[in-house]
């Protein structure tokens, strides 16, 4: 009963958030509605017993992707009125796409079989007394340590690439040099002057 109630609550908010994301006029509000939709989708995952996916959704999508969206929306000068101008032009195309997706959904719901025939295909075993975060962790660091480390190398390459392609050393900008600051003494950085009245000082 409670689970059903929670499901309809979360599902309702996902749909509401999704709808308002595309309907709200202010792009910043759109991103905030999107974050609401993400949070409620995470709630749906928790209901399914997939708490790892829920955490990932919150951390990665809300924490990183949505915040990035927010930055882009607020910092770039995107003309949303112009973006919306093409709406009527692409409406038939969009409707066509929606019809195709609906047909696919109906096919699946209609019990269409994809002919999965291999005996190797089975539902993943549920390990008793272990949350799926624990189960994943115990696999990633043992059986799949090779690919896990390799993925680390891929990320290192991405980091090197980003630095190689974008980092520039601009001449003529002032940077803080802490060593130099600490090495300064009052004797060499201050001087006593006796300016004549009404003539100002030269620095």
């Amino acid at each position: 009963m409670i689970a059903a109630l929670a499901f309809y609550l979360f599902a309702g908010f996902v749909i509401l958030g999704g709808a308002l994301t595309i309907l709200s006029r202010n792009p910043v509000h759109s991103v905030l509605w999107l974050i609401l939709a993400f949070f409620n989708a995470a709630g749906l995952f928790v209901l399914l017993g997939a708490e790892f996916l829920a955490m990932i959704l919150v951390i990665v999508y809300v924490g990183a992707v949505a915040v990035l969206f927010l930055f882009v929306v607020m910092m770039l000068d995107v003309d949303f009125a112009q973006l919306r101008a093409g709406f009527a032009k692409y409406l038939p195309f969009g409707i066509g796409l929606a019809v195709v997706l609906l047909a696919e959904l109906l096919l699946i719901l209609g019990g269409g079989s994809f002919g999965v025939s291999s005996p190797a295909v089975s539902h993943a075993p549920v390990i008793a007394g272990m949350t799926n975060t624990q189960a994943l962790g115990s696999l990633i660091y043992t059986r799949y340590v090779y690919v896990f480390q390799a993925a680390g190398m891929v990320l290192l390459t991405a980091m090197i690439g980003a630095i190689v392609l974008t980092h520039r050393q601009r001449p003529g900008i002032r940077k803080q040099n802490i060593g130099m600051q600490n090495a300064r003494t009052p004797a060499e950085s201050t001087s006593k002057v006796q300016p004549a009245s009404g003539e100002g000082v030269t620095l």
Partner: protein
Amino acid sequence: MTTLAQSVHLASVEAILAGGVFVTLMIGVFRGDRSLVPLTWVVVAIMALGGFYLGVVPAAGATGFGGLYIADGFSTFLKVLILGAAAVSAVLALPYLRQSATARFEYPVLLLLSALGMCMMVSANDLLSLYVGLELQSLAAYVLAAFHRNEAKSSEAGLKYFVLGALASGILLYGISLIYGFTGTTSFTALHAVVRGHGASDIGVLFGLVFILSGIAFKIAAVPFHMWTPDVYEGAPTPVAAFFASAPKAAAMGLLLRVAIDAFGGMTFDWRQIVTFVSIASMLLGAVGAIGQVNIKRLLAYSSINNVGFALIGLAAGTREGVTGVLFYLAVYLAMTLGSFLCVLQMRGIDGEPIETLASLSGLSRTRPWLAAGFAIFMFSLAGIPPLLGFWPKFAVFQAAMDAHLYVLAVVGVVASVIGAYYYLRVINSVYFADPAPTFAPADSRTNSALIVVAAVFCSPIGMLAITPLVAAAAHAAAALL
């Protein structure tokens, strides 16, 4: 079941390369760009050390990391080629990088990362390790293509390569997900058993296979997934183009052989049709497309498409002789293509700026006779004119196709190599029989000149002495696969 220590020992090459990445990166970060030259030689030493540690691989082959990794004669043969080509690519870039004021220390580090990815590719025994290896190699390659970030052409090449490469990775990944969904496994060993059983008639597995082959065909630049090649080779800095045309081709071809024969050995009939089509299309388009080119790098790009088509003939045969032919072809192809690019690197104006037009080669025999001789040897060899080494691997793959009763493929191959000979010979015609164009700057690197001489001697008739040991090694490697 092997322990982690045993697995790491088995994967010594990868471990050394990965450790080398961190060491060289640290040296580079603290010493700055002036460490480019010493760092390049450190990278070459690391690759040599890795090659030395290939000796730990047992003769019968072994798997490690719970079946994700395999080391056998096949992977060892390809790793020698990959490390050799990557080391040459690192060294040949030095004069070019110094000249173009992008002498940044990341160049050898990225090459090392790419070599690591390629070694992982040819040692993959699971679709997961295949994918991460491929991504590691590709990601480093995208950055290398855009290495001259201040030049519009280089940035364009990097962007094009990245967008199309990401699309190809997506296609590959989609195929992998289909395969996993319909067979329930990603391991090549398990796939082999499932596919041989009842999976062969499964339409879902077939779809997955098509997507995976398309993704890999992009990486080896086979028609119809070749469109990026001429633009990327033209736009990327010349040493990077030399690298793209050599080591990654060998790695991706090795990967294709492993996937087709190891994982999908039970569906030979299905993938043979695809490979045959891709092979014929690559040979013909590579040969015809090169004819109108005026830029030497674009010409070599079409030449690489053409050569991939020839190498695929051996795979289409699907026999041990065919695989031996492909490996032999790759070894000779690497020498020919690296040699050609080394010669292209010598094409510099009086002020040292790179020149890439075919017209500038006119009458080279009168201004730079030795360079002209180098061009002649590599072009004759690429065209497959008999006494030169380039003829023999072509002969080997045609022979394999005939033995497998693929007569049409062999005939088309011969026709395509005749068409292809036209543009290779056109280069030689312009070098020897046209009026001299303005002369190039004199050779500035003894190392590069020495590399040209080594490659030229290898491709010349003298290189025929190397055929016996090379074919024996390739046959040994092919035996590990089939």
